[in-house]
Structures are given as C-alpha cells and as structure tokens.
C-alpha cells in the first residue's frame, strides 16, 4: 500500500479536524461547567458578572466597591440582594425581615458594642448583613439545624452565642446590671414562644432571643413584641402585671417622668419606668437614680426618700426603721422576706422596704383593686405584702405585741371611732395603726396621734388617750399617783435603787437609757395586758384590771415583783405579818381590792387614783391621838379597832409631844441607826420633830438583823424583830435615854413599864434570870 502526498495531506487535515473537534468539545464543556459554577456564586455576587466588563450597557449599575473591609468579596450583602430571594419567590422572609423591626444595619456599632474580628464590618465600618451572615460561614446550614439554629450565620448561634460575641456587656449581665441570661430558674411561659421567642438548648433558659428577634421583631429594640406597655415584660413576669393602673404605674401618677435612659413612659412602659433590661443603675435592673445602700430599700427611696429629687410620697422624718437586723428568732417573720446586704432575699437578714411592701401589687388580697391615682391607701392595701387590717403584717415581726389585740388597747374594740393622724379609724388602720403609722409619723415610736402637754415624751404618748377628753378618759391616773418624769439619781446616791433595773428608763426623747427617767412605760407595757398569762378569750372592752395585769410589765401579785424591782428594800415584806395576803386576805384597800388583787404593796399603796397623798396610802387614814402625827395615821389605819390589825394595837404609841428630837445623826438611810423623824402635819421626813411609828419601825422588814422575807406565819415579835428598824446600841433613843433605853425599848408601848427606872428593870431582870 502506497500513499500519495495528497492522501497524506488529506489524512493530516482530517486528523487535525478530529482533534480540533474533540478539543472544542472538551473546552466548551469546561467552559459550561465554569459558567454554571460561576452562576451559583453570582446568584449573590452579582458584581462578578462578566457583563459588567463588556462595553455593553447593563440594566443595573456596576458598583465595584467591596462591602467588606478586607478585599475579599464583591458587592454581595446588600439588602437588595438578600431581598431578591427572600421576597417569597425563593424564601418568604418578608414578614420577618422587612415587615417588622430588625437588627440595625448600615450603622456604625455603638461604643458599647465590640465587634470581634471574625464578624466583619463594611468598608465604612458599618454593620451590614454580612456581619452576621455568610453562605460560607460556620453557621451556614441549608435549613437551619438544631446546632446552628438557622441558615447562613457566620458563626453558629447556639443559645444566642453569636449575639453575645458583640453584645458583651449584656452578656456580662451581673457586672452591667442587665437582665440575667442562661438562667433556668424561672419558668418561661409557652405564650412567649408563640410570640416569636426562640427556644434555648435548656428548658426555661433565658437567651437574647428569648426577648429579641433579629429579624421580624414586632417591637422596638427588636423585641419580639411591642413593649410600650410592658407587654413583653409581663409575659414572663406575670405577677408584676398587677402594677398596671396602680399608683406605681407612673403613667397615671407621673406622666411626664423619664427613666435614667431618658425614656418617656410612652416608650419605657410602666415596667421600664423603674427597670431597664440592660445597664441598670444597680441591681433589679434599676432605671432610676440610686444612692448607695441596700437595694431592697434604696430602690424605693430613690423616689420616696425625703432627700431625693422625687418627693412624691416621702416616708417622713419618723418612719419605720430599715436595714435593721432581726436578732431574735422570735422576731423573724414567717411570711415576709428579709434581705441580705446585696438586696437578695435571705432567711436571716435585715428588714427592708421590700419586707413589708410588694411594690407591684396594690392590694394583697384582690388583683382587681388597683387603688387608683388619688386613692389614699390604708392597712388593707398600700402595696403591702399582706393585709394589715388586723395588724397581721406588723405582728409578723412584732409577735410579742400580739396580745394587744385581746386587750383594751385594741381600739377597734374599745374606741372604734378614734382616729389616727391619717384620719383612719381602727377598723381601717388596723389595731397597731391607731397609735403607730410606719411612715410620716408625728413623732418617734412612729406615733400616729397628736402630742400635747409638757410632760416627758413617753408620758405624752400615754396621755394622748389617757386624758380628760381622750379616748381613755375613763382610765385616768387620778390626783395622786406614783411620781413620773423623775430620774432616780437621788436614790442612786443612797444606793437604794438599782438603776440598771429590768424596767426601762427613758431620756427626754423617749429612748431607753440606763440613767433615764421613770415614766409610764417604765411599769407598763401597753401591748401586753397580762405579763404572765396571754389572754385567749378576750371578754370584751373595758376589762377592769388589777395588779396581775393592767398592762404591767411584771405581775404585781401575789408578790409585788414590779414594785420590788425598784423598791428593793421593801421586798422583805413578803411573808411577814404585813403581807396581808397571808395575814388578812379578806382585807380591802380603798379601791375595794383584796390583797391578792392589789398585790402586797397595793394593800397599802395605790399607784394611781389614790385619795391620800401621803405614801399614796391605800387605806383610810387611821385616827391619831394627841401627840401622834399624820404618819402614825397610816399605821393606825390597820392597827386600830375594826381594822385588819386590831389585835395589834399598842397601848401607847406616842412619844411625849413636847420633847422634840433631833435626828441629824440618824437621818442617813444607809446607816444601821437610821431613825427618821416626820413632820406631824405633812408626814415628810424632818430632822427635828417627834417620834412616830416609822421612826422605830420599818414596816417592810420583820427583823432588822435579817434582810429576808418573813416566815409566812403570824408571829409574836420581840425586841429583836417586830419590824424594828434596828437593835443597835446607838439607836436614837440612847441619845436622850442613855443605855437604859435598850431595856426600855421593849416596853415602849407599855404605859407602865416604859416609865420604870432602869435599876428596877435590872432587878426585875435579875429575878427573872434566877
């Protein structure tokens, strides 16, 4: 076989044609692939289209500038590009992205935002779609899987982690006093999720997207719903919803008010007036001015404090103490919260405003009762945590005062028409509220009634009612009564009284002090009718008391424990013949009280409503014979015919009238030879006068040698006891009668023996000895 040159050329041409065809096919397929691949990119990266690099006129303008700061992409993340697919004809995002509010774009991040390098800004340094979104990002997922949450995020956004990358201040919520995140201790209502909230990995976990919706937010600040009326807040904080339309809904009471962020109420809503979800002034997301202190009170005082710019309803100079630690277990409330120093609730803590008040709810019983703008609150509402109409709230801590309810000091029973300074009757103010108001009181002790008179402060408190025109006008103390408004200094000099007694003394301001004055409440505790036996069945108003109750701090019968607290030297009357509970239980004092009712002391002394000035004598004065003084009348009131001690009447009791005695050497109470001389008329101690019964006798002590109680037997005495003041050899008698007085002493009341000469007495004694 031979080949001509033509045939060779022809074959070469054919071969070339075949090769060219194959190459053309391969190249065109490669080109087609490139076009297809390119088209997928150019779906978004429109500026990569070659059409812009021809001479032909394009239907859209070429904008070659990059969006990103780094020169890595062409124009892609323009809003228009996103919308061109998300308009419903590829993906319908109209209603989430373009109908409602969305994350700000094409703005520079604020100073509070720190955008990390992995989330790029635009060439202008602005946030744009691509800051968060990228088809090539780690969070990109075709349909939004559970891990990545949604499609085309640059970073996965598990539990709003992507948000927190920029919003670091909000993420660090404790430091910035922002709304807590990632906590699961509150139940998130299902309603929240139907409103557009995003569920977190853990049930009830709060994340940024619990409240915010980056696209499709129906409220401002990209909140999932409008919050102008705090609708979103109360979706979770449902209990606090009760604030709306109360006085704490500032839209009603202070419509022009603005919060710390200068937001008017129309923008902040009722919750936002006091709380801001991010960057509060202090805890509780506080959105108002705040001074240092415990938030559980200081938040309230930011408006209600008298020294604050908002003097709306100040608590006044005299207000219930706050930031007070309750030291005894008894005073710990059962139903009210106490607070730690950081304002958190704690079992053992301090009393703060929040202890009594739930500032979100006007009426603790009724959610319907909102009070209203001009309604003045009372014990049944006023944002109290529990109704106080029967002073239940007060008694949560002041448990020891609960007996007042079952006593005459419960004015709801005894004086229902009495009004306090607020004009409230006891049925409105509660029993405590008649005398005490927690805020804006008239005086210390949260006094709720007008004070008058010039007596000491505490006495004025009592005389508010216990005066001739007061509610307790039938319970006055009479013309003669135990001295009050006195200090015990002069007694302390003689060391008769222990001024550190268990009864309180008060300074002029009503404070309990060691060297204070004796006032009504020294002996009386106005909240406790019976110090020993709590009244269970209160019979009704105006119980007549006696020494066992009558609001006394200590029981005073049968043993006069109260009196003896101060009058200690008189305590030895117990069990002696002068203890009439033993010796004359049927005896009655001027008020008709038996010794058991009046107590040992009350037999002879009336603390109130006495008719006798001298020694507040509780019995009719006895008759006195010539030479006797008024002091003798006291003794004679018993030691006389027809009276309890009629079997103990001395035949002669008087000292010769004209023989005046000077007792300057015996007028010291602390000395063993004390022998008081009394003025016959006034009954007061004097240095020159006549001898009377008490000169020799101390009616409160059986034996001068033994400072002790009696034997509880009716004894016959002798010269060593018999209520004698002393048996010393230097008693007052010796001054005039010499040592002979010691022997006459016993026979003083014997009209015969007392005048015998000493020699005769000695002889008689000798004979007796023989």
């Amino acid at each position, binding site marked *: 076989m031979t080949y001509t040159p033509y045939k060779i050329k022809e074959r070469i041409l054919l071969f070339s044609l075949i090769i060219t065809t194959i190459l053309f096919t391969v190249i065109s397929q490669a080109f087609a692939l490139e076009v297809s691949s390119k088209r997928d990119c150019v779906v978004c990266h429109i500026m990569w289209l070659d059409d812009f690099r021809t001479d032909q006129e394009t*239907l859209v303008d070429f904008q070659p500038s990059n969006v990103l700061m780094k020169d890595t992409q062409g124009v892609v993340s323009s809003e228009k590009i996103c919308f061109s697919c998300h308009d419903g*004809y590829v993906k319908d995002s109209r209603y989430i992205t373009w*109908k409602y509010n969305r994350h700000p774009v094409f703005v520079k991040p604020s100073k509070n935002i720190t955008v990390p390098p992995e989330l790029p800004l635009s060439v202008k340094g602005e946030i744009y779609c691509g800051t968060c979104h990228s088809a090539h990002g780690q969070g990109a997922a075709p349909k939004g899987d559970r891990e990545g949450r949604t499609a085309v995020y640059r970073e996965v956004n598990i539990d709003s982690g992507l948000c927190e990358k920029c919003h670091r201040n909000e993420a660090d919520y404790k430091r910035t006093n922002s709304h807590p995140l990632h906590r699961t201790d509150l139940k998130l209502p299902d309603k929240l999720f139907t409103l557009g909230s995003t569920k977190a990995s853990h049930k009830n976990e709060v994340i940024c997207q619990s409240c915010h919706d980056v696209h499709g937010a129906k409220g401002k600040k990209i909140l999932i719903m409008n919050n102008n009326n705090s609708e979103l807040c109360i979706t979770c904080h449902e209990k606090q919803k009760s604030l709306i339309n109360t006085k704490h809904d500032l839209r009603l009471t202070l419509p022009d008010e603005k919060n710390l962020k200068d937001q008017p109420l129309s923008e902040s809503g009722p919750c936002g007036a006091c709380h801001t979800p991010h960057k509060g002034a202090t805890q509780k997301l506080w959105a108002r001015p705040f001074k240092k202190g415990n938030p559980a009170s200081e938040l309230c005082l930011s408006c209600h404090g008298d020294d604050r710019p908002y003097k709306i309803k100040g608590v006044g100079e005299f207000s219930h103490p706050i930031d007070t630690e309750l030291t005894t277990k008894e005073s710990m409330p059962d139903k009210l919260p106490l607070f730690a120093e950081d304002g958190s609730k704690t079992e053992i803590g301090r009393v703060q405003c929040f202890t009594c008040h739930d500032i979100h709810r006007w009426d603790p019983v009724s959610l319907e009762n909102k009070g209203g703008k001009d309604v003045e609150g009372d014990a049944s509402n006023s944002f109290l945590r529990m109704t106080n109409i029967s002073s239940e709230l007060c008694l949560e801590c002041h448990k020891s005062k609960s007996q007042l309810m079952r006593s005459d000091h419960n004015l709801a029973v005894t004086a229902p028409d009495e009004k306090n300074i607020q004009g409230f009757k006891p049925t409105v103010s509660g029993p405590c509220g008649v005398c005490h108001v927690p805020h804006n009181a008239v005086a210390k002790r949260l006094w709720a009634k007008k004070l008058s008179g010039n007596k000491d402060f505490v006495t004025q408190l009592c005389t508010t009612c216990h005066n001739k025109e007061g509610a307790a006008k039938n319970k006055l103390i009479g013309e003669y009564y135990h001295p009050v408004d006195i200090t015990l200094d002069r007694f302390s000099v003689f060391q008769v009284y222990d001024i550190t007694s268990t009864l309180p003394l008060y300074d002029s301001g009503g404070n309990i002090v060691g060297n204070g004055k004796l006032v009504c409440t020294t002996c009386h505790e106005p909240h406790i009718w019976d110090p020993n036996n709590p009244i269970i069945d209160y019979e009704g108003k105006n119980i007549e008391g006696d020494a066992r109750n009558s609001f006394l701090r200590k029981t005073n019968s049968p043993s006069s424990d109260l009196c003896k607290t101060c009058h200690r030297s008189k305590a030895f009357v117990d069990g002696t013949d002068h203890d009439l509970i033993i010796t004359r239980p049927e005896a009655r004092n001027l008020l008709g009280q038996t010794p058991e009712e009046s107590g040992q002391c009350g037999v002879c002394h009336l603390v109130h409503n006495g008719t006798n000035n001298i020694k507040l004598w509780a019995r009719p004065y006895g008759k006195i014979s010539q030479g006797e003084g008024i002091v003798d009348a006291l003794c004679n009131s018993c030691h006389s015919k027809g009276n309890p001690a009629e079997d103990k009447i001395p035949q002669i009791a008087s000292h010769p009238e004209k023989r005046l005695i000077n007792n300057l050497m015996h007028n010291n109470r602390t000395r063993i030879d004390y022998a008081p001389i009394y003025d016959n008329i006034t009954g007061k101690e004097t240095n020159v006068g006549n001898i009377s019964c008490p000169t020799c006798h101390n009616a409160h002590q059986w034996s001068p040698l033994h400072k002790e109680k009696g034997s509880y037997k009716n004894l016959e005495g002798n010269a060593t006891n018999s209520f004698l003041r002393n048996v010393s050899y230097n008693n007052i008698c010796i001054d005039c009668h010499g040592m002979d007085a010691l022997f006459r002493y016993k026979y003083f009341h014997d009209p015969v023996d007392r005048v015998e000469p000493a020699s005769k007495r000695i002889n008689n004694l000798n004979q007796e000895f023989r």
Partner: protein
Amino acid sequence: MTALRRIYFHLILLFLFSILITPDISFALKCINTKFLFDMKPGANQPSDLSIAPNGDIYLVDGVNNRIIVLGSDGRWKFDFGKEGTGSGWFKYPLGIDISNDGKVFIADSGNHRIQVFDLKGKYLYKFNVESESNAYGSDPVDIIASRLKDYLYVADNENHNIKVYNRKGDLQFKWGKFGEEYSEFRYPGIMTANEYNEIFVVDVLNTRVQKFEPFGKFIASIGSWGVLQGNFFRPKGVTLDKYNRVFVSDGYMGVIQAFTDMGTFLGVVCKKNKKRVFDYPVGIHIDKNNRLYVVEMKGNKITVLKIVD
C-alpha cells in the same frame, strides 16, 4: 484535492450559518415606550401580585398583611378581605392570585399550603390543600392560573420546584417539573401566566428564565437568559402577555420590565421616552385589554399603571 475542497466548502457554509444564527448584538437600548397613567398606594406591605376582575377592579395580594385589597379600575379603594390565620378565608402570607372568567378569585395561600377560592365580593367559597412531595418543607404555592382549558388550576409549588395541576374541586390531575437547570426543570418556579392557547409561561426564578409549556406540561421554549444585559434576567419575578402575545417579564433586582416574543426573542425594555423605566422592585405584572400595564412594586408598596405606547 476534491475532498479538501469539500471540507473547505463545508467550513465556509458553517461560518455563514453561524452568522445567520448569531443574535442581534447591537449595544443600543431597545425600548418599548410606555406612558405613566397613575399609581395606587393602598397601604399594602410588600404586595406581590394582582389580577383584574372582569369588571376592571384590581385585586391586589397584600400578603404580609394577610389580605386581598380590592381597588376600582381608577385606583379607588373598595374593600379588602382576609386576615391572618389558618381558618377558612384566612391567610398566612399569600403571594399569588388569579381571577377566572366566571368570576372566582383564586388565592395561592402560601403559608397555609393551600388554595382558597372566593367570589368577587370576597366571600369565602372553598379551599383545598396543595400536596407536598417533601414532608420536611410542605408545599409552597406561590401562584395560580385559572385556565379555561378544562377549568384546570395550575399551581406553582415553589418549594417543590414543580407545577401542579388541579381541577376546580382540588383534585390533583397531573404535575411536572423537578429541581434542576434543564428544560422542564425548575429552581424556584414563581409567577405564571397563560396565553390564549392555554400555554403556560412560568418564571423560573433562580434559573433566570421564563419557561413556556404546552397545557399538559410539554416544554416549548425558554425565554431570557442569565445576566444583566438587555434580554437577560437576574431575578425574574413577574410575567404577563399583551394582546400581541408579547411576553413581559419583570426583574425585581434590576427593577426593569422586558418584552420578548413568545419564543424568546428579546424585543425591548419598558421605557419612558427611550430611557429605561426603573421600578421599585417590580413583581406581579398584568396587561389588560386596554393595553394598560399594571406593575406591582413590592418595595414601593404600590401599583403603577402604564400605557404601552409601542
């Protein structure tokens, strides 16, 4: 030598043929001029599509507000119907609309995956669900055509990338299409229209074309191509035909409307005095018997009415 000459001859023929089939590559803007008549801003939020009732009233889909707005032919507000919800007569982000010759209003209730039918007064008549091939996503009916042919209802299922054909009762008759770039395949089919021969024109959004089908789904032609030059689409959205059977296609991103022959030859861009007329994101378009072009501007929240001059 003879063979070589034969080859040369064939190459020359091939060259001449290629010249013949090469499209017009003139760079000058080809215009179809229009005259502005009026526009309507009925308070819609991102409206998507419209249809003209036999009496000339304009039915506008205000999907984001879950309602249909009815306007007079002069643009005056008449009434609206529908609200958000899943109940009968309620909508969830509807997108498409068509009005049949017998005065039935068909709404592609996209978010509720169904078709709802009303009378011209907005009274609810009935509904039927659009089946989905995917349990994961559900159907996504974005447009509907009430055809005269056998009263067929053509439904574009955007998410499932096909066209489903129902009878008036809501029984599926047949369907065609799947995800892809070949002819008869779709990447997100959108708005449709039909010509007098009941041929169907479907906007194939991400394939940047309009596909023309016979009534039973056989592919006829592809209109438009990918790009930003004349005759290209970047995001085709709306399609309609005029009385000359010219196919008008709106492009949302580029903001223009272009005209083609029904076989795909580019005719021109809708212009105003020989300069392209730019719309604020044109979507659904419609040409009435008076040759008035109604353009729904989704971003502009309005309907612009133009008179086609050329």
